[in-house]
């Protein structure tokens, strides 16, 4: 981003780097007003963080309760502690169908995200590093795909799957998960940022073919981008609800979201399902929360690459 205002680089730095919140020096009342605005700024941030964290805290405490205390008791006490009971109910109900769903989610999200990031990174690399006719037109087509609402696609995908006989199979959920035009867009940006052309040139001079150059040089260097695309696609597949909802009717193929929805629909009639839905939800979000906490650098890079240019 270039600034429209020219600043004389020779001028002495009169103020430290981040001064926009600094009160004028010397004024007596300024210190207390600065203290006030500091409290106000951080107060608003604390309130916002409470708003986002509160439902998650509720999820944790609610998952430890039996049905009676979940419905009647004080949610934030540990009265009616029954986490063990809830977990065993979760693992024994219908021969542990919940953990089958868990496995399915891992399969859809793991294989889908791995395939998607490989395919996206290869395409992004080609868009960045090669010159060929019609390149920008092709890339515009990819960007058009980014703007296509995915749920508007899900119904046609379902009708197509009916036609081809792939409805209600693993493939019906897996194949559409391998495609993410936004991943290609991100990969192109990452490729431009992480892989210097000179390094590729050196590999070519050393006699490496194009495949070899990509595989052992390009892909290595663009690894942060690969992880970012993987993380985002993994989350997107793990969280997807509409596609499995239309595609799958066999409970054994359900991912977690669909299975929990199924239980939730039953819970109105049978309250003993409430603790299973809540505990099941907690277990279902755990891997994503852990991934986001440990991979902070990567999701921030992904968001930034998408927005700041």
């Amino acid at each position, binding site marked *: 981003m270039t600034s429209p205002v020219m600043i004389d680089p020779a001028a002495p730095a009169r103020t430290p780097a981040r001064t926009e919140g600094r009160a004028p020096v010397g004024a007596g009342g300024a210190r207390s007003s600065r203290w006030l605005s500091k409290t106000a700024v951080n107060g608003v941030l604390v309130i916002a*963080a409470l708003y986002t964290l509160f439902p998650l805290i509720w999820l944790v405490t609610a998952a430890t309760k039996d049905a009676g205390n979940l419905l009647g008791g004080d*949610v934030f006490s540990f009265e009616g502690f029954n986490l063990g009971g809830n977990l065993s109910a979760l693992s024994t109900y219908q021969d542990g169908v919940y953990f089958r769903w868990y496995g399915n989610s891992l399969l859809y999200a793991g294989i889908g995200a791995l395939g998607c990031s490989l395919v996206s990174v290869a395409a992004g690399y080609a868009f960045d590093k090669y010159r060929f006719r019609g390149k920008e037109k092709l890339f515009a087509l990819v960007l058009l795909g980014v703007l296509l609402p995915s749920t508007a696609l899900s119904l046609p995908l379902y009708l197509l799957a009916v036609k081809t006989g792939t409805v209600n199979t693993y493939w019906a959920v897996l194949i559409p998960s391998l495609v993410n035009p936004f991943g290609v867009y991100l990969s192109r940006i990452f490729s431009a940022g992480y892989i210097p052309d000179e390094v590729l040139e050196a590999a070519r001079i050393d006699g490496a073919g194009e495949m070899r150059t990509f595989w052992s040089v390009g892909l290595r260097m663009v690894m942060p981008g690969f992880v970012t695309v993987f993380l985002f696609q993994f989350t997107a597949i793990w969280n997807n609800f509409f596609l499995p909802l239309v595609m799958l009717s066999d409970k054994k193929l359900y991912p977690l979201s669909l299975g929990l929805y199924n239980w939730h629909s039953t819970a109105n009639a049978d309250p003993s399902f409430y603790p299973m839905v809540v505990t099941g939800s907690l277990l279902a979000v755990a891997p994503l929360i852990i991934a986001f906490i440990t991979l902070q650098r990567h999701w921030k890079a992904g968001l930034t690459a998408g927005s700041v240019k």
Partner: protein
Amino acid sequence: MSTPPTSGTRPGGLSAKARTRIAAGTFLTPFFVLFTVAMIIPVCYALWLSLFTEKQSGLGFDGPRTVFDGLGNYASALGDQAFRDGFWVLLGYCAFYIPLMAGGAIVLALLLDTALARARRFFQLALFLPHAIPGLIAALIWIYLYTPQLSPVVKAMESGGIGFDFFSSQGTLPSIVNIALWEWLGYNVVIFYAALQAVDRSLLEAATVDGAGNWRIAFSIKLPLIRSSLVMVLLFTIIGSLQLFTEPLILNRGSGSAVTSTWTPNMYAYSAAFERNDYGLAAAASVLIALVAAALSFVVTRFTNNRKEARA
């Protein structure tokens, strides 16, 4: 951007240009094959299907026949009050949601960007975490927090003398807006904050030296400079809003509920396909939703591009 290999012909006999073309083709093919299978063909198939309808043959002995109907499905979708109402619901939803979301995210990002903010990394993570929660589970959590027997929130509100039924016909829209806001607020805060961090610091110094206050700097310098992020957030928020489905589906609790099974356009398409088995109508509805999304994205990007040119 990059230069293709310039070294002449290799021992293999292929020219550098041919090798480049083959390599580019190899890297692009997997994506475009999948792109075609999972995006282009479904779109074309939806367009095709939307032109046909099922008609009972003369005396009804042979079962339904599929006949070409031209734009008949589009006419019946657009002529259906329930489908049109879905767009009104979306409009009402966006009228609440977009200002709250964009305004809230910008304010929080500007606060994070001031020198006064503490524990920035913690706040970013805390605000972002809901985005890691599957939409369905987010909706489930909030439904429970809205349900009087389960919810500490409703209990606290009642003891404070506030009675609010989140499932009533007036309560539905705020209930859903709140769920969406919770899921996406932090995501957008992080985008805006990242854009603000990229703002040239010397520009801000210059403004401070010239006597501009915090508010002035925020509105006259920082906001105009992060406009491209704002456009992107608006674009994705609008496309996301058009897809509204999961949250209202969970709020739809059978007949008599304020949320009907055709409450949003997406729910209408879903019920056309799976409750009425009218695939032609469902396809037409999907195409119309995609068209509205395309039109809105065009307007948003166009509007902002014009502004940019006018400034330059």
